[in-house]
């Protein structure tokens, strides 16, 4: 019953090109980095929710554990849904939910925390998720602003040679504006 999928990328990483083998078996879901043999494993009993969505590198299998931990496996072809959905149903009795991503191009929405992920949702669809494990620092530079800084390949020690050109453009900081109640009144008051 177990199935293996090659050339699967571990999602939710900055500048990570490591491909590996994804194995979906009765004991659980496992991914093995082809380069260094590192393993990411989700035991069958811990699987809470499985979703299927578009990502930059084709499609993504997102696995949420009962404790909130989220693992993402990217680079799956669209048609793989037809193989994975019945497989996940048979093995773990889970329905592979299709989730749409926001491609509206808006910079306003809402923040939602889900386990180890922080999602930015636009009109009820997730535009992107930030893995909290990648957050290096946060700041509140002004009353309605929050900045989040990320671990970059050098600081997290995941890059190879420093002189080599980075293969991907890495996000280093995001600044949110959170209006909150009372802003309007405060501004008016200040102008008087």
């Amino acid at each position, binding site marked *: 019953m177990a199935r293996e999928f090659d050339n699967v990328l571990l999602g939710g990483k900055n500048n990570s090109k490591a491909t590996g083998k994804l194995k979906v078996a009765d004991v659980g879901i496992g991914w093995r980095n082809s380069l260094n043999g590192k393993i990411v494993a989700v035991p069958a009993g811990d699987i809470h929710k499985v979703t299927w969505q578009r990502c930059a590198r084709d499609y993504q299998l997102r696995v949420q554990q009962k404790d909130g931990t989220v693992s993402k496996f990217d680079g799956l072809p669209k048609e793989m849904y037809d193989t994975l959905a019945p497989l996940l149903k048979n093995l773990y009795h889970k329905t592979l939910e299709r989730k749409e991503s926001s491609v509206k*191009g808006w910079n306003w929405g809402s923040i939602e925390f889900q386990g180890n992920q922080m999602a930015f949702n636009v009109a009820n669809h997730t535009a992107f998720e930030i893995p909290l494990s990648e957050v290096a620092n946060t700041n509140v530079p002004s009353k309605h602003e929050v900045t989040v800084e990320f671990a970059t390949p050098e600081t997290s020690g995941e890059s190879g040679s420093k002189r080599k050109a980075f293969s991907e453009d890495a996000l*280093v900081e995001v600044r*949110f504006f959170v209006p909150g109640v009372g802003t309007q009144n405060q501004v008016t008051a200040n102008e008087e």
Partner: protein
Amino acid sequence: GAAGETQEVFKKFASYKSEAQLPKHVQDMKIIVDNRNESIILPVYGQAVPFHVSTLKNVSKSEEQDMVYLRFNFVTPGVTKKEMSQPFEDPSATFIRALTFRSNDVGRFMDLFKQINDLKKDTQKRDAERKEKAD
């Protein structure tokens, strides 16, 4: 004053209707300028995230040692009078005010900087012309 006092209304816009419309090369996880759809696409932790040029206030670049940074500043409700007069669909939402990206590919980032500024200028010009015609 009397002239130009008409309340500006928020104009709806969208980069793409569906995920299928994203350019194929988003898989490279690099910043993309999509002139046809008046959008930039930014790679954020495995997701290709479009931003319509209307949301972009400006882009700035800086260099530090061998690194080059592009900072995208977005339009948000603010505290200045000018910012307050800007119409928003949902002023109480959480806004992304800025995103900063880094690369050591200085040449490509310089090129992106120019492309994005050109796109911004072109759309502003077109919008101004459209407005003039409508008046």
